[in-house]
């Protein structure tokens, strides 16, 4: 019997789930190798669990979701988080650094209908996670690599190094060194293929911190090219704000 795949959505924009549909060339093959048993974005037909692999998109931001994720974990043999929301809390975790009550009263006409938690947290803050795929959105190649690895019973080959590795291997000219463009590439987890620097833009840090990043040294450089502290902080305060905030400015020991 084919392994059963489920896709779950929490607080998110659906972009990472769409990456699965975006697999185009491989999608039919995938549908042949696994039973796509629960994927509401693609089909309302649902097969009951338990599931061999659950792909979980989105962060936990409501009391109901904090309960629902436990049930997802319970019926999933492997749980893989997909994307910055599920892995780091997402851009909605900016609320963690503000007063959620104030937001609620300003944003919603009838705030009493909105049940929300004070913080947006990653899935790993609630249940054990078997693998975390980074990115906003995730990379199609990395998603297929994780699924192929599980189907073959091997470890996924997802490197932990910074974007600079991919940038250099792609033959990009460094936007920091040659253009003086602020770039988070040296502290950001690889996986996107260094898309932004390939088009002359600095890295936005969509994939979150790389293994043991030295953000303090990068901030010194950003300061040297004229960025004030608030601008610098804003660079880190996007899709992976909580993950980057947890990185100390002191160099890793």
């Amino acid at each position, binding site marked *: 019997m084919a392994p059963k795949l489920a896709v779950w959505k929490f607080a998110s924009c659906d972009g990472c789930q769409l990456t699965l549909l975006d697999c185009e060339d491989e999608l039919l093959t995938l549908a042949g190798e696994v039973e796509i048993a629960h994927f509401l974005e693609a089909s309302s037909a649902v097969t009951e669990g338990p599931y061999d692999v659950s792909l979980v998109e989105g962060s936990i931001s409501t009391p109901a979701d904090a309960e629902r994720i436990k049930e997802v974990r319970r019926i999933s043999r492997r749980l893989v988080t997909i994307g910055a929301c599920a892995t780091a809390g997402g851009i909605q975790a900016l609320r963690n650094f503000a007063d959620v009550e104030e937001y609620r009263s300003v944003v919603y006409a009838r705030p009493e209908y909105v049940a929300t938690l004070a913080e947006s947290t990653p899935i790993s803050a609630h249940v054990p996670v078997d693998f975390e795929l980074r990115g906003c959105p995730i990379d199609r190649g990395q998603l297929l690599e994780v699924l192929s690895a599980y*189907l073959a019973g091997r470890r996924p080959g997802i490197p932990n190094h910074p974007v600079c590795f991919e940038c250099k291997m792609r033959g990009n*000219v*460094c936007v920091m060194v040659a253009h003086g463009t602020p770039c988070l590439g040296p502290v950001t987890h690889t996986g996107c293929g260094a898309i932004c620097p390939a088009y002359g833009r600095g890295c936005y840090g969509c994939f979150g911190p790389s293994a043991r990043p030295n953000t303090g040294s990068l901030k*010194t450089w950003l300061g040297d090219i004229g960025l004030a502290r608030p601008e610098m902080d804003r660079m880190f305060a996007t899709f992976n704000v909580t993950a980057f905030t947890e990185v100390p400015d002191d160099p890793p020991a």
Partner: protein
Amino acid sequence: MAWILDGVAGLHAALVEAGYTVIGPTVRDRAIVLAELESADDLPYGWGVTLEPGGYRIRRRADSAAFAHSAGPQSWKPFLHRPRAKLWDARRTDDGFEVAETREEAPRYAFLGVRPCDLRAIGILDRVLTGDRYRDDAYAARRDGVFIIVVNCTEPGETCFCVSMGTGPGADSGYDLALTEFAGEGRFLVDVGTEAGADLLARIEHRPADPVTETRARAEVDAAAGRMGREMPAEGLRELMAGSLEAARWDDVAGRCLTCGNCTMVCPTCFCTTVEDVTDLTGEHAERWQRWDSCFDLDFSHLQGGSVRTSTKSRYRQWLTHKLGTWHDQFGSSGCVGCGRCIVWCPVGIDLTEEVAALRREGEKSDG
């Protein structure tokens, strides 16, 4: 016997006619990169560079020199030692699997504008990747028959120190042809290094160099030796590295180092690779890929139970002590050619000549 060449358009055309893919410097993304040259017009005529630790800017020159710039973002390494290369494919069969080795049709390259420092770097890669029983066949196939046109250096950059490393500014062997550019005059002095070089030269218009012109060209190269932006005396480097393993300076550099791996990837001699095995969704097909790796990657030293070199300090130390020290034991030379790329392309401008000087000072202090 030296010759004079009026421009390199004829040389480029002759190389193309001889079936070579010509690689040389050209302007792209505000840098002088190495790429295929469709014609000699693609050369960076009139462009120079300004270098500093962590900084690279191209600038307009007053003349129209084609090779008046120092080391760019990458060396010739990516053309010979590919960033990614498939080693083999495997297909599942009824009773096991079948492996098909990947045999790439290697392009026939002509490298136009190789600096003497980079020429030495290619020699070092030859030694590492083909010099003993662990041969990299893909490298050997790409390297075999490369036609090398050196351009002796008359324009050292702010981060250059080939003189310290004994690799430049002039080349005395290892090339097919060696040019010396008279900046802004459109003329080149040509030295012939091989029979292949002589054959090619015979196909294009050239004339014997008069002694005055030849002397002037040699003098320009000699003068470049006095304009190195950096120095790193080679004497005792190997011993310094061996004796500095516990130096406090490693902690200092670790505070700045991003472990981003840029220095190793722009280094013309860093050769490390890893292999990655991938299977497809069906499990019927597997591939093994080789890709560049770096001692700055945490996973580079991953053994049973985890990485051996977790600290930034240990990773930077591994790189520098190998490059300048244990490389001698392993390959019989230094691993550094003084091109200065690791200084320029380090995003935070870590300068190995400065680190070495600091290690020397620290060593002298503790000895004294």
